[in-house]
């Protein structure tokens, strides 16, 4: 059936016999902003690993954009197909300037013998635009290692943006952020939404409630429940396994 940007079917991943993902079915629609939550060890990060080729499933099928068989394609090829990922800890290139980080990101489809040539004007414009959106314009020539935690996260999101992925996977984008930074990140998400699909893994329930429309809850390697935030929050099963333990915080 057509219509999913990412379709994960009956996927099982086990490490030493322990099933991290257990016959999991999960899909994301075109143009959707989806949130993925779940207690520690539910398999959230592993699911992202599966979608980016970092981990190969023992069983099951993963299809991107109705045509790419994710389990058979190398990691860098998946990125070129249009799957961008921001890792949990900010990973920018500390010894390169902010601009050079963008430059490295935008050249990802350039073949090796053309890497000696400078960027085209169009590419430079795209970088300027991404710096504008992520609020890093005045940090252009600063070493990325000296940015604040929040700015590093934004730089990483900006680096994804210039690659124009069809699907963006964000692993805990607001972890360790101040409230103001968190709000900015949420706005940033909505700003970069048009024309692509985004999956956000997040622990921060305040952030989820504020910016999510559709939430998937993962538990013990399977989808426990899926739907609008209010519905998920009031689902007795969810309260039982996940939110129940910190009900006070959620309610």
């Amino acid at each position, binding site marked *: 059936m057509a219509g999913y940007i990412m379709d994960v079917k009956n996927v099982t991943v086990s490490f030493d016999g322990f099933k991290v993902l257990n016959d999991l079915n999960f899909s994301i629609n075109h143009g959707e902003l989806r949130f993925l939550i779940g207690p520690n060890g539910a398999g959230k990060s592993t699911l992202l690993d599966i979608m*980016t080729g970092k981990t190969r499933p023992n069983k099951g099928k993963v299809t991107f954009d109705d045509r790419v068989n994710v389990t058979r394609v190398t990691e860098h090829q998946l*990125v070129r197909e249009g799957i961008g990922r921001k*890792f949990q800890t900010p990973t920018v290139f500390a010894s390169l300037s902010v601009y050079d980080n963008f430059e*490295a990101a935008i*050249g990802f489809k*350039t073949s090796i013998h053309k*890497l*000696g*040539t400078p960027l085209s004007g169009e590419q430079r414009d795209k970088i300027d635009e991404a710096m504008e959106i992520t609020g890093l314009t005045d940090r252009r020539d600063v070493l990325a290692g000296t940015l604040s935690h929040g700015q590093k996260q934004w730089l990483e999101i900006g*680096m994804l943006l210039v690659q124009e992925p069809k699907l963006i996977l964000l692993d805990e984008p607001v972890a360790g952020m101040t409230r103001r930074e968190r709000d900015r990140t949420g706005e940033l998400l909505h700003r970069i939404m048009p024309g692509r699909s985004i999956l956000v893994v997040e622990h921060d329930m305040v952030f989820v409630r504020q910016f999510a429309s559709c939430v998937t809850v993962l538990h013990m390697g399977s989808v426990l429940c899926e739907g609008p935030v209010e519905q998920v929050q009031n689902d007795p099963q969810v309260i039982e396994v996940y939110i129940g333990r910190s009900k006070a915080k959620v309610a």
Partner: protein
Amino acid sequence: MLKRFVNLRSLSFVIAALLLIALPAALSDFQISLLGRFLSYAIVALGLDLLWGYTGMLSLGQGLFFGLGAYCFGMFLNLEAAAGKMPEFMGLYGVTELPFFWRPFYSPVFAIAAAIIVPMILATVIGFMLFRSRIQGVYFSIITQALTAIVALLLVAQQKLINGTNGITEMTSVFGNKLGEHNTTVGLYLATVIVLGFVYLGCRLLVKSRFGRLLVAIRDDENRVRFMGYNTVVVKTFVFAISAGIAGLAGVLLVPQVGIISPKQIDIVASIEIVIWVAVGGRGTLIGAIIGAVLVNTGKSVISSSNSDIWQLIMGLLFVGVVLLFPKGLVGSVKDGYERLKPLWNKSYVPHTTPEPAIEPEAS
């Protein structure tokens, strides 16, 4: 401001080049040939710096590529010395017909091309296999080191074909110029200076391009580069091959200046010495690699001419000392020191930090 800096840099490059070219007038033949040797070492060091300083891959096998290049050109020189006959050592071991793989080495073009291409092919094959299996860091170092030892052993075992442990020693002239004569020595020295200049400029172009910044990105976080959509296997293999080719080219320049190439020059110690040159000079800076190679080798030749045993000790101490105290090497430390001292004489200098914002009292 930036423009002036660039001009200053190219100006100092030109001055250094002119100085190196004019130097033979002031030195004895012996000193010229020593310096020529050191400068060919500097070329290998540049190749290792690309690999280690910029891309973060510590190869302990550069001596292998260096030696292979030297062997290729050494075979040509040996055939030139034999003047149409068999190389002398073969007669000693009862070889009556020139082995097939020696034949193309009558051609100097082939010999020089092989000296560059053979190490590149070897590096490409090994690099591709290692990098594809995600072998990194210390494991990469160990495997390149083991490989060096294997090839050295192989060469030792081939007594009949390439004179085993003794190596190739019959060399009397290069392109008809007698080795040891003043003009030949100066000519070889100048050839080394010119090649060094070109290799330096080539490396500089490379590291200043987008490609160079990608290398630094790989050094910082290879995984991230992979998940940014680059095939890091190809990029790393490419750099490895380039550095191997540079080492091979340096071997071509070295061999007529020393008149011998033997498995001893390929062994592990030789490869580690190359690492020490780069570490002392300052990895991640091209000029540091050159300075390190020349300085350490000058020290070696001065000290080991008086007491030969003590040099190994000194070099060990030097390496440990540099790693512990000056991890950025000479050039890196001088740069740091300059940055720190700058405000003292330049009053208008403003440090690159923004003042901390005043902490607002929390409203409670």
